[in-house]
């Protein structure tokens, strides 16, 4: 008796259950994160002008080209359509100063895509956030290039664009280092960093734009609130406590939240799904860890900005956190 009496319907599909699927897929998620990053990028372009566009363009294009080349060479199927390379490129660009030379950006993309992701087996297999791996790699290999912050000026004003100013955190670090108190740092009204009128990497300057992007992501349920809220909360509480203890040695928490890369880190870097814990409890532990290390490096460490290092170190702890925060067994016997 043959298996089929010639009744099979050739073009019918058969798969295991379930047979329906939610409309959200990986490319959709990556696109939403890119849309959320656009306000921050625009503010960067507004304040740093054409060089910012140049850096973003080089970074995104080179990331995509490198990924395609790698996958062709390794005879793997090309996954450029999922937009993860473009997202990594954009994130990397926002971590670089707009004055970064083109070869630095290309090298950063190379490190981000190859060392950060493809060598581990492509999307979803990398333990560290690719954009951060590239940023820290560049920060340590080319400290000079990575810390020349072109001064921000309105897009249309003709002021000379070679003037370099320090980032607020950088000024704070030198002040404490030389005079032992923060009062020596140039006074900063908090509105400037809020809207972006400060030195810094081209993507991290405007806290407002990044917060807007972050809220969009949380509203669209792309990321859960746990990591950004707890991360920023930990930094606020920690710096607040220190500020209470000794106001002229430690800056006030509002400054710490708005200045530097905290907003970009908390909303876009730490919440990278591949490199953050999978359970909500794990996300809370991860965020607290990031917050503590960020403040420790900012206050006592050698580098003015601790966000990148904190997130990378916590990325390393994610497998352990996942193991510890496994959900309890249903009906544990």
């Amino acid at each position, binding site marked *: *008796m043959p*298996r*089929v*009496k010639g*009744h*099979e*319907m050739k*073009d*019918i*599909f*058969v*798969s*295991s*259950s*379930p*047979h*329906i*699927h*939610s409309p*959200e*897929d*990986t490319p*959709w*998620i990556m696109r939403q994160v890119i849309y959320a990053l656009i306000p921050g990028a625009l503010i960067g372009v507004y304040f740093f002008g054409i060089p910012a566009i140049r850096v973003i363009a080089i970074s995104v294009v080179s990331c995509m080209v490198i990924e395609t080349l790698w996958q062709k060479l390794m005879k793997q199927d090309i*996954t450029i359509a*999922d937009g993860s390379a473009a997202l990594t490129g954009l994130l990397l660009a926002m971590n670089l100063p707009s004055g970064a030379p083109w070869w630095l950006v290309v090298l950063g993309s190379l490190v981000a895509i190859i060392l950060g992701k493809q060598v581990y*087996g*492509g*999307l*979803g*297999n990398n333990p560290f956030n690719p954009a951060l791996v590239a940023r820290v790699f560049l920060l340590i290999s080319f400290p000079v290039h990575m810390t020349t912050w072109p001064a921000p000026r309105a897009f249309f004003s003709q002021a000379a664009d070679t003037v370099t100013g320090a980032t607020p955190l950088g000024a704070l670090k030198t002040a404490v280092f030389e005079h032992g108190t923060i009062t020596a740092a140039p006074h900063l009204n908090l509105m400037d960093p809020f809207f972006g009128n400060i030195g810094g990497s081209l993507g991290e300057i405007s806290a407002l734009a990044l917060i807007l992007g972050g809220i969009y992501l949380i509203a669209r349920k792309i990321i*859960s609130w746990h990591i950004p809220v707890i991360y920023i909360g930990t930094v606020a509480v920690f710096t607040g406590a220190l500020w209470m203890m000794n106001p002229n040695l430690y800056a006030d928490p509002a400054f710490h939240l708005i200045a530097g890369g905290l907003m970009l880190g908390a909303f876009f870097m730490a919440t990278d*799904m*591949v490199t*953050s*814990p*999978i*359970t*909500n409890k794990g996300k809370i532990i991860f965020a607290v860890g990031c917050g503590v290390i960020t403040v420790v490096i900012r206050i006592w460490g050698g580098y003015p900005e601790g966000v990148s290092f904190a997130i990378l170190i916590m990325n390393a702890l994610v497998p352990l956190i*996942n193991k510890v925060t*496994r*959900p*309890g*067994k*249903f*009906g*544990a*016997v």
Partner: protein
Amino acid sequence: MKTFKGGIHPPEEKELVKDNPIADFPLSSTFYVLVQQHLGAPAKPIVKAGDEVKKGQVITEPLGFVSAPVHAPTSGTVKEISKMVHPVTGLLAPCIVIDADGKDQWADGLPLERDPSVMTTEELMGAIKAAGIVGMGGATFPTHVKLSPPKEKTIDTFIVNGAECEPYLSSDYRLMLEQPERVLGGTLIAMRILGLDKAILAIESNKPDAIKLMESKAPPQIQVETLKVKYPQGAEKQLINALTGREVPSGGLPMDVGAVVQNAGTCAAIYDACAHGIPLIERITSVTGRGIKHPKNIKVRIGTPIKDVIDFCGGLNDAAKIIFGGPMMGIAQFSDDISIMKGTSGVLVLTEKDTNISHYSACISCGRCVEACPMCLIPSTLSKAGEKSMWQMALDNNLLDCVECGSCTFVCPANRPIVHFVKYLKALQRAANAKSKGA
């Protein structure tokens, strides 16, 4: 409104067929009655080619306690005992082919007229067993086994599952709306067998008219409970957890926490068996989905060939998938040489747009499946282990707790077939156990 942890909100798509009243299905010319229509030990045909059979006459004999007999859906002659594709396994299985004589003549004495309230529990149990009643939700577990838990298990709650959380389907909904007496009657019978004085009838809040009707008709001992609309609310472990807060122990059965769950359709069949001695030869099925021209709820005989059902509902229009059961846990069919079974709660025909046939990509650990999983598992780890056939590692991650409800696969942005990986890992684990026991 009560509910459980985890779960997802798939688009309900019930409006396609929700408001169509149950249509009577014309008698087919030939019936293909599968011998194995239940979960458990196989049964043996007791008729041979050429025999005359009457409607409701028993035609197979169960081998073993956990088994159920099958009955002739109509009067006619047995053409042959041959093989056809079994909708659940996809392999060839024995089936009894009956050519209907059109008279639709009941077997001698049926349908009886008797009052279940005066019958003893042994008589009730005998009637259920003889009628071949099985779980109609889709699991098809023999009902007489479920209603006779071992002595040491004390049962204090009887739950009638009217949740019908699967999208597209509305057979239980129409049953509760149009024939509430059968459901309530069956519930009372089951309560008497289990020796309980109260029961819970659980219905999801997206069926308000059914809830109102049941509340008005239900005797005081049957309490109607409204549940939040969430998939998989109708799964046994989730239903018990939502209504009683108890958690069925891992690897255990509902009776371990003193609960017995029966589908609303099964209760209706219990009533017919006890009150009228009618065996399970007919059931209500939703034929729905955008791949079929006129979706209908039909009262159809077991063994009716699927071709007749599709023609009755206007035929297919660019069908990509034909599924027995709901979209979340139903089984995709590939041959139209199959027939309606006792467990076919729905015939769902999906177009390419409604179903999911794209290839899967790498897991990005986004955690949506962890939030969706009602059994508190980490589906992403199971799917990665599945890709590498690492069943030992999956066992350490509570592989056997998975009820294969499909919530994780529904929400997974990378389109990963996690349920398929789980089924594969379970198959590997069973093969390894058999080999180690055998070796």
